[in-house]
């Protein structure tokens, strides 16, 4: 079949536009100049050493890991229970529950950050890590609900019915019959919410403190005063990290499913 080449050419240009910045950062990270320039005039590994000795980055990394781990666990727990209720129970106010569970994606995250700081964190004197965990979890519950709900609606209800009619308790049915069948969806939303939390800026911007901040926030404040390749080195590590996550998830369960 003979079709026009035009779409393919646009696709190539688009991919180039998407990918080239990543390559530029990879190369810039190995630059040997004292300030950022491209192409670098010499090459070295010194910026990787430099970021490893920056306490703010190391500390920020661990804060991010802790917050992302806890908030993704919290949002998947709430997400699975709400999704299961929506998929398998009929009750009044179902639509209201559905609305409340999707609301966080409609409100701009910067607005969420401001509201949480003013009317939750300051009022209750919450410290930084719990504030971040709560804020991120609220933000990402809709993703967990949606992914798990999609998987539940593809799971035939008959197997649960037979389990129940054979005398299995609701609890037993859920953990032994349902959960193993939606394992991929649960894993996908765990990984997705972990990454979204790890990378989050708009909410973290308001909820972090001078003392304790997540990695993206530390990078932002470092960039206010410095223009050197250490951020390129750090970005390189983060790009490798996300590439690894995308690759592993795609291999395990097909991450592309999560975005449909």
């Amino acid at each position, binding site marked *: *079949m003979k079709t*026009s080449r035009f*779409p*393919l050419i*646009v*696709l190539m*240009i*688009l991919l180039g*536009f998407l990918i*080239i*910045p990543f390559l*530029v*950062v990879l190369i810039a990270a190995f630059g040997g100049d004292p300030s*950022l*320039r*491209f192409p670098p005039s010499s090459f070295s590994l010194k910026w990787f050493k430099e970021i490893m000795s920056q306490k703010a980055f190391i500390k920020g990394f661990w804060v991010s890991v802790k917050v992302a781990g806890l908030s993704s666990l919290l949002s998947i727990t*709430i997400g699975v*229970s*709400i999704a299961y*209720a929506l998929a*398998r*129970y*009929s*009750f*009044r106010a179902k639509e209201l529950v559905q609305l*409340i*569970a*999707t609301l*966080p994606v409609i409100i*701009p995250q910067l*607005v969420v950050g*401001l*509201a*949480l*700081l*003013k*009317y*939750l964190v300051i009022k209750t004197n919450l410290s930084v890590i719990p504030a971040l965990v709560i804020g991120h979890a*609220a933000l990402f*519950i809709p*993703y967990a609900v*949606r992914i798990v709900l999609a998987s539940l609606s593809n799971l035939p*209800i008959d197997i649960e019915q037979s389990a*129940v009619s054979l005398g299995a308790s609701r609890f037993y049915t859920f953990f032994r019959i349902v959960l193993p069948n939606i394992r991929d969806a649960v894993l996908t939303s765990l990984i997705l919410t972990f990454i979204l939390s790890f990378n989050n800026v*708009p909410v973290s*911007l*308001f909820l972090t403190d001078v003392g304790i901040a997540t990695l*993206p926030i530390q990078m*932002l404040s470092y*960039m206010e005063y410095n*223009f050197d390749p250490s951020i*390129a080195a750090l*970005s390189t590590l*983060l790009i490798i990290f*996300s*590439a690894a*996550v995308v*690759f592993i998830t*795609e291999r395990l369960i097909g991450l592309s499913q999560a*975005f449909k």
Partner: protein
Amino acid sequence: MTLYSKWPWFLVLPGLIFLVIAFILPIAVLFANSLFDGSSLSLINYLNFVQDPVSQRAYLRTVKIAVIVTLLAMAFCYPAAYAVSRLSSKWRILLIALIILPLMTNSVARTFSWMVILGRQGLINNALKLIGLEPLRILYTENAVFIGLLHLFIPLMMLPLISAFENIPEDVELAARNLGASEWQIFLKIFMPLTAEGLAIGGILVFTGCVTAYVTPAILGGSRHLMLSTLLYQKASVTLDWVGATVVAVVMFITTLIVIYFIRLVSGTQRSKPAGSQ
């Protein structure tokens, strides 16, 4: 069909209470407080926003940038998504993974890469110097924000469009071609109606993304090209004008709602999907 008909309070209530305390109440109070001047109900805070030249400029700039980036993303992604949908499944999976990768990457890192490309000592200016041209000032201008946002949000346009095109069987296109339809007719009569929903979802994601993105305008635009997001942060954290920040937040939210409604109206779609990232 449902399995149980009892009210599943033990499944729903914990999450609901969490969302109400950690999300709905703070936002409701924030919005409500913007309507008060001292203790009396008034729109004075909004009037101040409308009459303030800095806020006006930030608002118009935000809408302008969001509209242009959304249209550019549609124009580039439409043919590209079609091309992806017609590839063999092996290539398609690889390309979709390549498109998802930026979404999974830290936005600070992604925006930083444009500083390396657009900066005074960056890729473009060093290339210009090499061929003997004057350096261009791109970083810290509106153009840098355009480029950065387009790069940030292209995946959010690509993914719904790819899945829209994947749902059109190739036979439909072949049949139309066989019967003598021109490329334009195929585009207008077949693709447009069948991809309208994907285009609308992509449009909503990109537009709302542009209106609310913080990192890109903060890093690439500099402090002289404020958008609503950077204005909001400046009011909340630098000038400590909480009421002003709240007004910006409400204006930002209402703008996204109006555009979502408008795009749904134009494309005739009702079904909603939660947003991607950012």
